[in-house]
C-alpha cells in the first residue's frame, strides 16, 4: 500500500459548504479509485476555511484484468478465424478456447489480459476529473480562466508515498508547498508526506486542519472562559459548526456589552449576536438570564491578548442593539392592533392577495375550528386578527425569524389577554420536526387555521411542492397540521376541516375563484401522505400503515392508534399466528376468485361441526370487534379477532374447503369471505407483508 495525500488550497470557502465539500471530495476520490481497481483504506479527510485535505492508503498498482473476446463459430470460414486471431493478438488457433453453445453452435473465444496501471498514472486523471466537475452549491470563474471552483484556487499538493504526482488544473501545477495561516504562518511550508504535513501545518503554519478539533477547542475554551468569569455559555451547535468554518486558528475571547441592552427581548439579543455577528450568548448561571457578555471567536491570537478585538466587536454589537432598541421604541408607540390596516400593503403572494386578506380568511377558519377545541370564539377571532400585525413592525422587518415572538411580546407589554399572547407566539409552530407543537386551544385553532389556509391557497393556484422544491414550505405546513392533531390527541375530521377552509375562503372573499373538488382531494391526499411519512419516521411499519389507511381515513388520531395497536399485536405470537390463518384463508379466496365468481351471500346449510362452530365464532367476533372499534379500544378489537384463531385452525384441519358437493363448497367459501370481512374491520390483512 502507498499513502495518497492531497491538499486543495483556495481562497475562503463559505463555512456552510465546507463539511459537505470534504465529504464529497472523499467519496468521489474513493469511488473513482475503486472504479480503477484501487481500494482505499484508512481514509482521512479534513476541511477548513481555505483547504480540503484528503489522505488514504491505496495499492501501488491496479490489478491485471481479463477481458473475454468472443470469436467466430468453429466452422466459420478461414478468413473470419484469421481476423479473430489478429484482433485478439493470438499466434495460433490452439491458443484460443472453444465454448459450446447448443443453440448457435460452438465458437472460439479467448481472454485478453489487461495490465494494471500504476496509481501515479490513475490518480491525476481522477483528480482532474473530480476538480473539473466538483458539486459546489455555487461556483465561480476567476481571471481569464473558464475553470470553476467555489472561490479562486491557489494550490494543489498531490503526493503518493511522498512522491510528487504531477498534474495541472487551471494553470495550477501540483507541488509540495502550501501556505499556513495568513498572519501567524511562517512562509511557505514544504511537505514530505501526510504526517509531515499534519505536524508542520499546525506547528509552523498555525492552522488546525480538523474541523472537529477546532470545534472542540472553541467549545472547551468558551466554557472555561465563562466558568472563570462566573458565567455560563449558551451552547448553539449550528453556530459552533459555522464558526469552526470561519477560523484556521481559533481564539476564544469574552466580550462585554452595555447592561442597558438587556432590556431588549433576549431573543432579539441572541439573534443579533448569532446571525449578524456569529457570537455566542452567555448567561448568568444563578438567574438563568442573559448576562451582558458574549463570546467571539477570532482567527488569531493578538499581542494584547485580544483586548482590541473584544473592544471592536463590542462596539459593532452596540450599534446593532442600538438599532434594535430604536425599533422597539418606535414600534411601541402604537398598539399592535393599529397595524392591522397596514397589512394591506404586504403581499402574501401575488396571486393570493395581501396578508390582511389572509388574516381575514384565517380568522373565519379559526373560529370554525374553535368549537371542536373548546376555545372561546371571540378570543380566537381576536387572536387571528392580531396574529400578523407584527409583520409591519420595525423589529420584525429587521429580525424576520422572530415573527410571532415579537407580536406576542408587544401584546403582552400592552397588557393583552394571555391566551392571545400565547396564540400569537405559537401560530407558526411547529417550525421543524424537533419544534414543539402549540398546546393552548386558542393557539391550536390559530396554528391549524393558518397552515390549512396556506395549503389550500397554494393548492388553488397549482403551486405544489415538486421533488426537492418546496419554496413555500408546504410539506412543513402539512406535517405541522398532522403533528398538532396527533400530539394534542384531537378528534378532528380532516376532510371536514378542509371543507370549513373552503367556505371560509368564499366567505372572506367571494371574488376568489371557486376551487375544483379535485383540488381538495389532492390536498387531502397530500396531507395523508405527510401523515404516512410521519408515522414511518416514528417507527411504524409501511405495510401496516397501508393496511389500515387503505380503508380510508378522516380521523388521523384514531388511524394512528389503530396502526400502533396493530403493530404491537403483530409482534406477539398470537398476532403472527392470526395473521397467517387470515392470509391462508385470503389466499384460498384469491385462488378461487381467479377461477370463478365467489359465491357471495349468506351462509345457509352447514353440515360439518367445525363449520358451524366457526360461523358462530365469526358472528360473535364481528359483533365484539365492531363494538370495540367504535369505542376505539383497538387492542380489545385485536383480541376479539384473535379469538377466531382456534375455530379457524380446526376448520382448516378438519374441513375440506373444496368439497365435491358444490353447495357445501359454496358455504365454505362464504365462511372464508366472512373471515376476510371481519378482519377488514381492523385492517386490510392482505396488504400486510411481514
Amino acid at each position: 500500500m502507498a499513502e495518497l495525500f492531497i491538499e486543495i488550497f483556495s481562497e475562503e470557502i463559505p463555512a456552510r459548504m465546507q463539511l459537505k465539500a470534504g465529504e464529497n471530495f472523499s467519496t468521489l476520490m474513493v469511488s473513482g479509485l475503486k472504479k480503477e481497481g484501487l481500494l482505499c483504506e484508512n481514509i482521512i479527510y479534513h476541511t477548513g476555511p481555505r483547504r480540503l485535505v484528503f489522505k488514504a492508503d491505496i495499492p501501488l498498482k491496479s490489478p491485471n484484468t481479463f477481458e473475454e473476446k468472443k470469436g467466430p463459430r468453429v466452422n466459420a470460414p478461414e478468413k473470419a478465424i484469421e481476423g479473430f486471431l489478429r484482433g485478439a493478438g493470438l499466434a495460433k488457433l490452439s491458443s484460443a478456447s472453444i465454448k459450446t453453445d447448443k443453440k448457435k453452435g460452438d465458437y472460439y473465444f479467448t481472454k485478453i489480459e489487461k495490465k494494471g496501471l500504476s496509481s501515479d498514472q490513475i490518480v491525476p486523471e481522477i483528480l482532474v476529473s473530480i476538480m473539473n466537475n466538483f458539486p459546489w452549491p455555487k461556483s465561480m470563474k476567476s481571471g481569464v480562466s473558464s475553470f470553476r471552483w467555489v472561490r479562486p484556487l491557489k494550490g494543489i499538493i498531490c503526493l503518493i508515498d511522498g512522491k510528487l504526482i504531477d498534474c495541472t488544473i487551471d494553470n495550477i501545477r501540483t507541488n509540495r508547498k502550501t501556505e499556513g495561516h495568513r498572519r501567524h504562518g511562517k512562509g511557505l511550508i514544504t511537505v514530505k508526506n501526510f504526517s509531515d504535513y499534519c505536524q508542520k501545518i499546525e506547528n509552523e503554519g498555525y492552522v488546525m486542519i480538523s474541523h472537529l478539533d477546532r470545534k472542540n477547542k472553541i467549545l472547551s475554551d468558551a466554557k472555561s472562559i465563562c466558568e472563570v468569569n462566573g458565567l455560563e455559555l449558551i451552547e448553539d451547535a449550528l453556530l459552533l459548526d459555522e464558526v469552526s468554518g470561519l477560523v484556521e486558528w481559533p481564539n476564544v475571547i469574552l466580550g462585554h456589552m452595555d447592561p442597558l441592552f438587556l432590556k431588549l427581548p433576549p431573543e432579539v439579543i441572541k439573534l443579533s449576536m448569532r446571525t449578524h455577528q456569529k457570537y455566542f450568548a452567555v448567561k448568568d448561571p444563578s438567574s438563568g438570564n442573559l448576562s451582558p457578555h458574549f463570546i467571539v471567536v477570532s482567527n488569531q491570537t493578538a499581542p494584547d491578548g485580544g483586548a482590541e478585538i473584544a473592544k471592536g466587536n463590542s462596539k459593532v454589537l452596540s450599534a446593532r442593539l442600538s438599532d434594535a432598541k430604536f425599533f422597539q421604541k418606535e414600534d411601541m408607540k402604537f398598539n399592535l392592533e393599529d397595524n392591522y390596516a397596514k397589512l394591506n400593503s404586504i403581499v402574501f403572494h401575488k396571486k393570493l392577495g395581501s396578508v390582511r386578506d389572509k388574516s381575514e380568511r384565517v380568522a373565519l377558519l379559526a373560529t370554525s375550528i374553535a368549537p371542536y377545541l373548546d376555545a372561546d370564539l371571540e378570543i380566537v377571532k381576536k387572536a387571528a386578527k392580531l396574529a400578523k400585525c407584527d409583520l409591519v413592525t420595525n423589529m420584525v422587518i429587521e429580525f424576520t425569524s422572530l415573527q410571532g415572538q415579537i407580536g406576542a411580546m408587544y401584546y403582552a407589554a400592552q397588557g393583552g389577554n394571555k391566551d392571545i399572547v400565547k396564540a400569537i407566539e405559537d401560530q407558526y409552530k411547529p417550525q421543524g420536526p424537533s419544534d414543539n407543537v402549540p398546546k393552548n386551544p386558542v393557539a391550536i385553532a390559530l396554528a391549524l387555521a393558518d397552515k390549512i389556509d396556506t395549503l389550500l391557497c397554494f393548492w388553488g393556484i397549482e403551486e405544489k411542492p415538486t421533488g426537492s422544491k418546496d419554496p413555500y414550505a408546504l410539506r412543513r405546513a402539512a406535517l405541522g397540521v398532522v403533528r398538532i392533531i396527533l400530539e394534542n390527541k384531537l378528534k378532528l375530521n380532516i376532510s371536514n376541516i378542509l371543507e370549513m377552509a373552503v367556505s371560509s375562503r368564499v366567505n372572506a372573499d367571494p371574488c376568489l375563484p371557486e376551487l375544483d373538488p379535485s383540488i381538495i382531494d389532492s390536498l387531502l391526499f397530500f396531507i395523508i401522505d405527510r401523515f404516512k411519512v410521519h408515522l414511518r419516521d416514528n417507527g411504524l411499519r409501511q405495510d401496516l400503515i397501508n393496511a389500515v389507511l387503505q380503508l380510508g381515513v378522516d380521523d388521523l388520531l384514531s388511524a394512528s392508534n389503530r396502526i400502533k395497536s396493530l403493530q404491537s399485536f403483530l409482534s406477539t405470537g398470537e398476532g403472527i399466528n392470526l395473521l397467517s390463518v387470515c392470509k391462508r384463508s385470503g389466499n384460498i379466496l384469491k385462488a378461487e376468485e381467479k377461477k370463478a365468481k365467489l359465491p357471495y351471500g349468506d351462509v345457509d346449510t352447514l353440515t360439518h361441526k367445525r363449520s358451524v362452530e366457526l360461523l358462530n365464532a365469526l358472528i360473535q367476533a364481528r359483533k365484539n370487534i365492531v363494538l370495540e372499534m367504535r369505542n376505539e379500544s383497538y387492542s380489545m378489537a385485536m383480541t376479539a379477532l384473535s379469538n377466531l384463531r382456534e375455530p379457524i385452525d380446526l376448520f382448516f384441519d378438519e374441513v375440506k374447503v373444496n368439497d365435491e358437493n358444490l353447495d357445501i363448497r359454496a358455504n365454505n367459501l362464504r365462511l372464508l369471505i366472512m373471515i376476510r370481512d371481519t378482519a377488514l374491520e381492523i385492517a386490510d390483512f392482505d396488504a400486510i407483508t411481514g
Partner: protein
Amino acid sequence: MEMKNKTKSVQSFQGLILALQNYWASQGCVILQPFDTEVGAGTLHPATVLRSLGCKPWNVAYVQPSRRPADGRYGQNPNRLQHYYQFQVIMKPNPVNFQELYLGSLAAIGIDMDLHDIRFVEDDWENPTVGAWGLGWEVWCDGMEVSQYTYFQQVGGLELDIVSGELTYGLERLAMYVQGVDNVYDLVFTEENKINGTPKVLYGDIFHQNEVQQSAYNFEYADTYKILEKFKFAEEECMALLELDIPLPLPAYEHALKASHLFNLLDARGVVSPTQRQEYIKRVRNLTKACASSYLNKENNTKEKAWKN
C-alpha cells in the same frame, strides 16, 4: 508575528481617501474622479458596469458619492446617510494575489492586522437593477464589515468571459472605525490648518445641513408626479438612443442611471407598492441590459485603438 514599518492610521476622512488612492495608484490603477450622475452605489459608475464587459483589461479606482434617498434620517442617525461615499476598485482580470493586495490596502490606511481580526465571510453580491451578480465576501474587521469583495460573474445580464475583482469600501464606516468615532458627523474630515490656524473640519460641518435638507426633499417635497414623468422620459430617451442607426450606449446608460435614481426617489416617497417595486426594478434592468449589450456590440466592432486616429 512582529510587524515592521507600522503605518500610523490615517486620522482624517480626506487622508483616508488619499491613502487609498495612493495605494491603488501604486498598484497601477487608473485613478478616476466620481461620475456626475446620481447613483446608488459606486458599482453603477460606467467605469465598473460597462468596463467590466468584454475582453479589454482595466484597472481603476475612484471615489463615488452614492445616494440612497430612503436612508435619509434628517441628520439625526449616527450611522445612516442618504448621501455617502464609496471607494471603488476594479481589477480586470482579477490578479491572483487580489486578496493580498486588498489586505495591503488595509495596512496602508493604518489598520494593524496583528491587533485586529480580519475575516472573509461569505456574501454573494447581486444588483438586480444592473443584472449583475458575483461571488465573494464581506470583509470583517473585529466583526465590522469594512468592505465588500466580489468576483463579478455576470453584468448587464451578460455572462463575463473575463472576471473582474471588485472592492467597495464604505468610506464613512471605515473612517469611523479608524478614527474610533461613534457618530458619523463627528468624523474629522480635514485636520487643523496650521498655516492660518483654522480649526479641524468635521464631517458634520460639511454635510449635516445637506442631510437635513435632502431628507426633507426626499421624504416630503419631491413631486412624485413630476418624478414619474421624468422617469418615463429617461426610459424613453435611453431606448431611443439605443435604437439609433448608430446606437449611443454611453449617453443611453446615463439615462438608465437617471431612471434608477428617480425610482429610488419614488420609493423613498413611499408611493411604490411591493408589486410595482418589482415592476420598476425590471424596467430599469431592461434598460441597463440593453445598454450593456449595445456597449459590448460596439466594443467588439470597433477596431482596436481606433480613437487614436
